[in-house]
Structures are given as C-alpha cells and as structure tokens.
C-alpha cells in the first residue's frame, strides 16, 4: 500500500465537468440559432438550399432540447454526484477499484450515446416523441449507462463511513429511480421490422425504426407523465440536491431547517408524479384526470417553496455574502427563479388560465425561466465551487464571474418577459371573435404581431450564451491560475481579481 493520506478522487467528476461545459455550449448555441430562426425565417437556409435539411428549425429543435437536457444538465448532475457523493458519504472513489472502473465506464459509454444521439437526430432519425426522440438501439444504450450510474451510486453508498444519508443523497437517489422508471415506461416501443401490417406485409421500415407500444390518448398520457416528470427528476430533484450541498458549503451556514428539507422531499415525491396530466388539459384525456392534474399542480407549490424558502433562509443573517460573492449570487438568484417558476407552473395548470396559455409562447417562457434561471445558474455555481477544489487552484477571475452574472440575468429577464407578452398576446388573439363567433384574427396576424418579441427573445438567449462562454473561459483559465492551500478551501471559494 502507498503511504499517501487518503484523498477524494475527482477524476470522473472532472470528466463530466468537461462534457457539462461542451454540451452546454452546443445546446445553447443551437437554442440561440433556433430563436433567431423564429424571428427571421430566412435563417433556416443559412447554409444554403442544399444543406437546408440540416439547418431547418424542425431538424435542430430536438437537438437543442436533448443537448441541454441530456447533455448539459445530465452531465452537470453526474459531475456533481461524483463530487458531492464522495464528500458527504466521507468515502473516496480511490478506495474501490471497481467503483473507479464503473465511473469511467459510465463516462465513456455516456459519450458514445451522446455521439449517436447527435448523429441520429441530425440525420432525422426520430421516434417523434418529445424529449424521447431516440430510437430503440439508443434507448437500450441509455438504459445500460443508467444502470452503470446506479451501480456506482449504490456501490459508493454501500462503502460509506457516514451512517445517515445527507439530504442531497436522497435527492440523487430519487433522480436515479425516477428517471429509470419514467424512461423505461415511456420508451416501450416495437421495432417496425418485427410487426406485420393489416395486409400481411412484414419487415416494414428501417431496422432502427420503431413505434410506441401505446396508442392514441394512452400514448399521450404516458408521454406527458414522462415529459413532465423528466422536468421533475431532471430539472428539479437533482438541482435541489446540488443547492442543498453547495449553498451551505459555500456560505458556511448550516441548512436553515434540516427537518423542513426532509418533509419537503417526501412532499415533492408524493405530489410530482400526479401532475403530468396538466399538459393534456382540454384534450381527449378523461376530465377527472385533467382536474386531478390541476389540483396536484397547485399542491406542488408547497414542497417546492419548502425547499426554496429553506435555501433563502439558510442565508439568514449572512446576506452580506450575497453582495460580496458572485458565486452565492448565482445560487440565491437560482433559488429565487425556482420559486418564480414553481408558482408560474401551477398558475398555468389551472384550467381557465391554461385555456389562454396552452400552445403559446408563455409555456416556452416558463420553461426557460426555470431552466436558464434555476437549472443553468445552479449547475454553473456548482462547477464554480468545484473548480478550485478539483484543480487546487483559485477561480481565475471574480470580476469576470460578476459580469457574467449580470449579463445572464439580463438575458434571462429579456427571455421570459418577451415570452410572457408574446404568449398572452397569442392566446388572446387566437380566442378573439366577433358577435357571430367568427375568429377575429388569422394565424399570420399573430405571427406579425409577435415578431419584435421573438427578436428580443433571441437577444436574451444570445446574452445567456455569451455569459456561458465567459463561464467556460473562466473555468478553463482556472486550471492554470494561482495554486491554493487546503485551508483556503474550507468554505468560500478563493477567487482571483
């Protein structure tokens, strides 16, 4: 045995930090291109008629959503898991060759899946189910990656020194179990070559093509049970896991109420899975199911605000840290955006509000104040906190970080305010009619009116992307910044000017 003292091993965490940043840039860049395509449709042909197949909105759109969800966010979740998991369980990955192997295997297989997703989506190979576009061979690979992630997670928990599991670990476990269940059930599909048509022909379509095992309304129900809970177990639960670790750690403050964190956890678990039906209000789904989804969406405010308020109160008596540290600013604003979007979502799920909001840009605005303001800010804050500890160097520039914070805050604000106005305008115009019930506007009337807001949204997204590039540069430069002592890493992260 070597005589070196035992240390946490961040090899796998660093690998996933890299993909978080790269896939973040890709996903957000595609998002900005899409936003400007909506405002200026000629951009669909930006690389000429010949390549229009690859540059049009509909081909790029799943690439944007899947790159930010399964690329940026998921990498961020993995990176923080391989960092936080070791620390709060007080066990190093270096203590187990098997866990280290599983961690690295997890990363490389994940990368293979990412590449096959990008290639297949650009080639137009898709199941056409939103956020579940991957065809069956990729689905199987995703399941393998997820099982390896789970084996690593429970393996690490199995050799822990700390008897109880810190609240963040509960949330990471919920992420693993939730996504596993959702992904399996929503992607039940039958390869078309195995099917036989009514006229007796068999072996239909390409080998990789499949159709959902569910039909009609059932398919829609399963799809939105999945779609909404992908938000729950991808954008909420693991991000709450992050803030419960990184905010107390960075500020040196104990969680305001650990008990509140426990009961919010169970509240969230009970309620979230029932709310997915709110995506199908006024559809052919049974009426009682729509009402149930509305009610559960409203109740969802309670556990969501339980966590968010718990985080804000953790800063009680220490608010000068928010002014002093851009890193804490990211987390406090993230938590605030979490409160905003978990109030906004339930409001949109009320049937009478949904009658105006459904299918409009307000929904897009809601998604983005949650993802840009909450998910994006929290993942970047987590990586900023991790960087000095995994590289043993101070964060390259505090002022660059502060500038990034304000640029992105303006970006998010432009994004969601323009989409609020656009969405409500759209909803009102679609419904407007004269005294005989004739529609007052045609669809193209709304398109004309919305143009300025679409342009503003594009600018908002661009500002956020610029901020993200500043973040990437700051982390890159951190790798060669001033080395720091162990004692500097206790709480507040060391930052250069």
């Amino acid at each position, binding site marked *: 045995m070597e005589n070196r003292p035992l240390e946490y091993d961040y090899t796998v965490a660093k690998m996933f930090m890299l993909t978080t940043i790269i896939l973040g840039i890709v996903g957000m860049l595609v998002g900005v291109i899409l936003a400007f395509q909506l405002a200026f449709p000629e951009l669909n042909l930006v690389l000429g008629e010949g390549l229009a197949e690859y540059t049009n909105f509909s081909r790029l759109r799943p690439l944007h959503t899947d790159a930010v969800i399964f690329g940026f966010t998921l990498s961020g979740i993995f990176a923080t898991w391989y960092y936080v998991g070791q620390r*709060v369980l007080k066990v190093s990955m270096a203590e187990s060759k098997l866990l280290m192997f599983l961690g690295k295997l997890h990363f490389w297989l994940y990368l293979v899946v990412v590449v096959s997703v990008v290639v297949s989506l650009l080639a137009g190979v898709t199941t056409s189910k939103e956020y579940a576009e991957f065809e069956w061979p990729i689905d199987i690979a995703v399941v393998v990656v997820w099982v390896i992630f789970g084996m690593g997670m429970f393996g690490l928990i199995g050799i822990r020194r700390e008897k109880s599991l810190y609240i963040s670990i509960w949330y990471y476990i919920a992420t693993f179990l939730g996504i596993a269940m959702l992904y399996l059930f929503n992607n039940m599909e039958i390869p078309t070559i195995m099917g036989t048509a009514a006229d007796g022909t068999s072996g239909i379509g390409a080998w990789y093509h499949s159709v959902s095992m569910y039909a009609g309304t059932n398919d829609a129900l399963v799809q939105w049970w999945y779609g909404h809970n992908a938000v729950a177990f991808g954008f909420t639960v693991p991000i709450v896991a992050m803030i419960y670790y990184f905010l107390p750690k960075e500020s040196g403050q104990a969680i305001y109420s650990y*008990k509140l964190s426990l009961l919010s956890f169970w509240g969230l678990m009970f309620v979230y899975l029932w709310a997915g039906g709110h995506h199908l209000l006024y559809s052919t789904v049974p009426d009682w199911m729509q009402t149930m989804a509305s009610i559960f969406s409203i109740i969802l405010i309670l556990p969501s605000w339980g966590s968010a308020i718990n985080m804000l109160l953790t800063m009680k008596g220490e608010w000068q840290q928010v002014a002093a540290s851009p890193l804490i600013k990211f987390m406090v604003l993230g938590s605030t955006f979490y409160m905003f979007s978990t109030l906004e979502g339930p409001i949109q799920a009320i049937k009478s509000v949904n009658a105006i909001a459904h299918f409009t840009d307000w929904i897009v605005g809601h998604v983005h104040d949650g993802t840009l303001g909450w998910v994006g800010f929290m993942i970047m804050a987590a990586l900023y906190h991790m960087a000095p500890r995994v590289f043993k160097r101070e964060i390259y520039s505090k002022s660059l970080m502060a500038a990034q914070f304000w640029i992105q805050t303006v970006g998010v604000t432009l994004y969601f305010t323009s989409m609020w106005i656009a969405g409500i305008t759209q909803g009102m115009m679609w419904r407007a009619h004269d005294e005989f019930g004739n529609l007052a506007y045609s669809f193209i009337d709304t398109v004309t009116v919305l143009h300025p807001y679409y342009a503003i949204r594009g600018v908002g997204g661009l500002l956020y992307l610029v901020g993200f590039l500043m973040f990437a540069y700051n982390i890159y430069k951190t790798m060669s910044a001033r080395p720091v002592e162990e004692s500097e890493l206790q709480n507040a992260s060391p930052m250069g000017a």
Partner: protein
Amino acid sequence: MDIAQLQAYGYFTLITLLVIGLYAYIYHLYTKKKDVDGVDYESYSNMALKDDIDDTPVAPVSDDKEK
C-alpha cells in the same frame, strides 16, 4: 361494484393514508427532534459543512458494528 368504483375507493384510501403518513412524519420530526439513533436532525447539516475525508462523521457506520 364495478372496477371503476373500486379504483376510486382504492385511490381515495391511498391518498388519505399518504396524507396521514406525511402529517404523522411532520409531527414526529417536530416533536421528537431526534431520530432513532438519538441524533438531532439539525446536526445532519454538518455532513455537508464538515465533509473532509478525515472529519469525524456525524454518526459513523462503525458505531453499528460495536452495538
């Protein structure tokens, strides 16, 4: 009683039990304040604050084995 009615009663019973369970849990947390091992719930925050590899665990796993 048809299946739909059974489902409705089952659903109502399940939700009622879950609500009672959740409120009982909240009552337990705020009256007992400590878990079965006698550790104050609030001290679990230290799992994040004191998370160096040589920090003392809030409640070490090895305690179990000694019992």
